């Protein structure tokens, strides 16, 4: 049997950071990823932060990946962070850029497929020097232990092999966590369900529309009627030449009153402010004359497809910030008008205002406040990132990627120390890692309310009439606006703990009612210039790329259960249907989110199988 020092399970940002860090420390590690390519299974909101907490130390992305700032394919540096309250056509906006900047070096919008591929490239170059590397397309199905404590990894694809330690970074639906009993499956109360679409928009249009200079970007958050009465909200982040538009809601709120996840996205897209953000000039094909000979019809169809493709390419080039001399600009312009002329004159292509959706996706997000693993290890396995239920969601503070990267580094350091002493016992490896996580500022932030951070909100909400929030949060507000009282209140709140405070704050009032009232009383009306032709869920799924597995990776335990009946609505890929009172699954369109995992035998698809995101 082949032997290696360390195996990292899962090639997301956490696992890749762990691999890079172990390699930086000169240790041999191999990373196993189920997707056919690193990044193909990863999806995030996504903003990646680099932080500088006042107390404690975190390892940031640019410390693990040295040339991150010079070379990494991040999208835009977020310089505007705005929260909008919506009601019909009215929007009331609050600038929270100060909260975004709070203790931050930067926050970049990112697309995970690209970014994780880049991380992988960096990590693998170092890993190779020490006999390690990355193996995509491999799904770990179980772990066994030898008498001497070394672990044997069994996969669907490879001969089994032996390792001294494992870092489990398989994400929110970690099979290793459940298999070993290290933690139970997360419950709906501990999870958010996020759905996201990628909208295409040329770079320069984004610069102009969002009032940002080249390379910089904006993040917009939404609450109010766009939530369709759910606890959570919407977001819109600018990428270089795309937008990430998403909706994130508490899964238990969704279970109480199920709404199709894609309808929550649609509600957001139809909000006038969002509709105006995403709009673009879109070519529309003319119907082909059916009386023409079939070969001719085919020829026209192919010619139009090719022209439209060229048109998008040329226009993209025209509206990108690539350095071009004047001659080049003129050439591109000429080519664009030539192609456009061909389209309209020869093939009757017309243009209309609409939006272009490139990719739909979904994922579960562990609510770090509620599901952080208290004992993030089992034997010689360390759990990190989403797999360990870690992530920060406090009001508009949304951080996951940076937490995972820091975790990955901590796990790597703990394993490196164990390799040096050749001691992989729970007391030496696991406890040490657990201690390290407890000391992490990201963990501390979950336990204690930061009054300075709180003040930013109070300042932002200065103009909000007291009576709107007064009736609900009056006493708290009064305490908070007074400097001395605020200190006492925060102390008192910290004694109570997040567990007790959360239901008060994360409520329908906060996400739905207050924002609606704000928008109605103070909001500006946004005129709408068109109505976006929103894709159906069937079209969204058919645009995704899959490598179907004929063997289902999910098994329904009880086709009569109430929970499963709700999956007919809550599955973001509409994989469930009800026939004669029984719930049936069609696994081919599954996007591996895990929403149904609560009451199914749920596994990730085998190596290389299932969905492949192009953006993520």
């Amino acid at each position, binding site marked *: 049997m082949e032997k290696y020092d360390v195996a990292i399970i899962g090639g997301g940002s956490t696992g890749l950071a762990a691999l890079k860090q172990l390699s930086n420390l000169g240790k041999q590690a191999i990373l196993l990823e189920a997707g056919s390519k690193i990044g193909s299974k990863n999806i995030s909101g996504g903003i990646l932060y680099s932080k500088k907490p006042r107390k404690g130390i975190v390892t940031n992305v640019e410390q693990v990946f040295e040339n991150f700032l010079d070379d990494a394919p991040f999208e835009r540096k977020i310089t505007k962070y705005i929260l909008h309250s919506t009601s019909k056509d009215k929007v009331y906006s609050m600038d929270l850029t100060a909260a975004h900047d709070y203790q931050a070096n930067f926050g970049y919008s990112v697309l995970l497929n690209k970014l994780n591929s880049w991380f992988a490239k960096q990590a693998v170059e170092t890993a190779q020097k020490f006999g390690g590397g990355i193996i995509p397309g491999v799904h770990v199905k179980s772990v066994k232990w030898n008498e001497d404590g070394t672990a044997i990894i069994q996969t669907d694809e490879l001969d089994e092999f032996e390792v001294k330690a494992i870092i489990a970074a398989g994400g929110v639906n970690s099979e290793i966590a459940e298999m070993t009993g290290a933690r139970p499956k997360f419950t709906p109360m501990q999870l958010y369900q996020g759905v996201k679409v990628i909208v295409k928009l040329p770079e320069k249009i984004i610069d102009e529309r969002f009032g940002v200079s080249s390379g910089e970007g904006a993040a917009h958050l939404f609450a109010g009627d766009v939530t369709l009465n759910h606890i959570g909200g919407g977001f819109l982040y600018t990428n270089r030449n795309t937008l990430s538009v998403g909706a994130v809601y508490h899964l238990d709120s969704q279970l109480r009153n199920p709404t199709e996840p894609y309808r929550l996205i649609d509600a957001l897209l139809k909000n006038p402010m969002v509709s105006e953000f995403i709009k673009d000039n879109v070519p529309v094909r003319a119907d082909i004359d059916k009386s023409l000979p*079939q070969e001719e019809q085919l020829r026209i169809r192919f010619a139009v497809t090719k022209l439209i493709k060229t048109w998008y390419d040329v226009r993209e080039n025209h509206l990108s910030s690539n350095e071009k001399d004047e001659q080049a600009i003129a050439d591109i312009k000429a080519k664009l008008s030539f192609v456009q002329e061909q389209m309209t004159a020869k093939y009757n292509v017309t243009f209309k205002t609409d939006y272009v959706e490139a990719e739909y996706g979904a994922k579960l997000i562990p609510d770090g406040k509620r599901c952080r693993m208290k004992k993030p290890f089992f034997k010689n396995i360390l759990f990190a990132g989403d797999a360990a239920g870690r992530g920060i969601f406090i009001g508009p503070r949304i951080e996951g990627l940076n937490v995972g990267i820091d975790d990955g580094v901590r796990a790597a350091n703990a394993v490196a120390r164990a390799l040096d002493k050749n001691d992989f016992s729970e007391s030496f490896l696991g406890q040490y890692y657990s201690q390290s996580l407890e000391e992490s500022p990201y963990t501390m932030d979950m336990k204690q309310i930061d009054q300075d951070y709180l003040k930013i909100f109070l300042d932002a909400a200065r103009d909000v009439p007291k009576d709107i929030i007064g009736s609900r949060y009056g006493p708290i507000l009064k305490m908070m606006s007074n400097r001395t009282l605020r200190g006492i209140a925060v102390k008192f709140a910290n004694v109570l703990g997040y567990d007790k405070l959360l239901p008060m704050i994360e409520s329908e009032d906060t996400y739905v009612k207050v924002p609606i009232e704000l928008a109605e009383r103070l909001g500006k009306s946004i005129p709408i210039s068109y109505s976006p032709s929103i894709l159906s869920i069937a079209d969204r799924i*058919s645009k995704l790329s*899959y*490598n*179907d597995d004929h063997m289902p990776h999910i098994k329904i335990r009880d086709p009569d259960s109430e929970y499963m009946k709700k999956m007919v609505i809550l599955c973001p890929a509409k994989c469930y249907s009800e026939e004669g009172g029984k719930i049936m699954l069609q696994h*081919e369109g599954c996007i591996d989110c895990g929403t149904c995992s609560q009451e199914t035998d749920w596994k990730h698809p085998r190596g290389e199988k299932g969905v492949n995101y192009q953006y993520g």
Partner: protein
Amino acid sequence: MTQEYYRHLYVVIEQIDGKILPVSFEMLGEARRLFDDFNARYSSNEKVVAIILGHNIKEMSKELIAYGADVVVSVDHPEVKDIRNIIYTKIISQISTDKEIASKIEPSYASEFKKPRYMFFAADSIGRHLSSTVLVELDSGLASDINKLVIRDLEVTHQIKTAGKPVNFKKTLEMYRPDFSGFLWTTILCLDNRNNPVIERDYSPQACSIIAGAFKPISPDPKRIGVIVDYVPKIDEKDLRVKILSRKVIESEVDFESRRAVVGFGRGIKDAPEKNIKLVEEFAKHLDAEIGISLPISKNVYPASPSISSTYMIPARVIGTSGRKISPMLYVAFGISGASQHVTGMEDSEFVVAVNPDENSPIKDQCDIFIKGRMEDIIPLLLEELKQQQQVVQA
């Protein structure tokens, strides 16, 4: 009279475990028809010569004569029991240039004989490669996947072959090769270089590989008389260096034989391949039918998900000359235009229904019911009606 170095039509027979493949009889049938006419037209006495290699194959020679061979050259040897390219190529080439054999075939042509005039091979997993290597050894041309043959005198003008001047080529074999759509025929000729000041060359035999199912065998006549030549090959030990370790028969997942109905689809899926194939799938399920395809579908030109394309767009499902021949009680063809290569595969079906938007497509002449319309429109209607009628029966 000018000298003729190239005589007769040699047909390379294929047999597996003592069973002659149907394509071999088909080739003999076509050879017979061509040569009866050839000998009459050119007042000659050239022969259809079957070459068969194997072990314990004595009985087969008579069968080949019954199917139209004038002469059978048989090689019965343990080393040629199974087909192996090198040794087969060597022996077939020996036979094709052997004067002693030529004298047994037809003594009056033997003294001048150099090589066969024509040669036929099967266009299958064996013959396609065998023909290629034999023709390198015999240093002549080869046309592959042929389904029509004509012999005639032709005047040809060609830049290289005739240095741009018209030359009359006698007894030329026109070899017709269908393209993959089945609607275009390319005629291929194997011609000597004539009139060319630089390179004057003979290219014989004129050889081709023939698609299985393209020609009909003649009805066998056990009383036919022919010559059997037992040839003892010269075997060079180094030509036996490829060893067959095992042979394993695999059962096909596609079962056209035991199903009463077969549903086929063709290029009519093009507007929505994925969706249309799913419709066909559902329709077939209701009839308990196997699913077949026309040849172009197996070329993966239509985009569909991997599971669909790996299940349906595969050569094992092709109905036609380059696939399987079927004879179900019911054959339903969706969006198949009916290229002759497909028709050959389905013409023995008892009852044929075709769905096609184009009333001029050739399939109309090959079916019992022609429903005019696009498959995406018609299949849902048929399905609904089928469910209804099936319900009535159950009630």
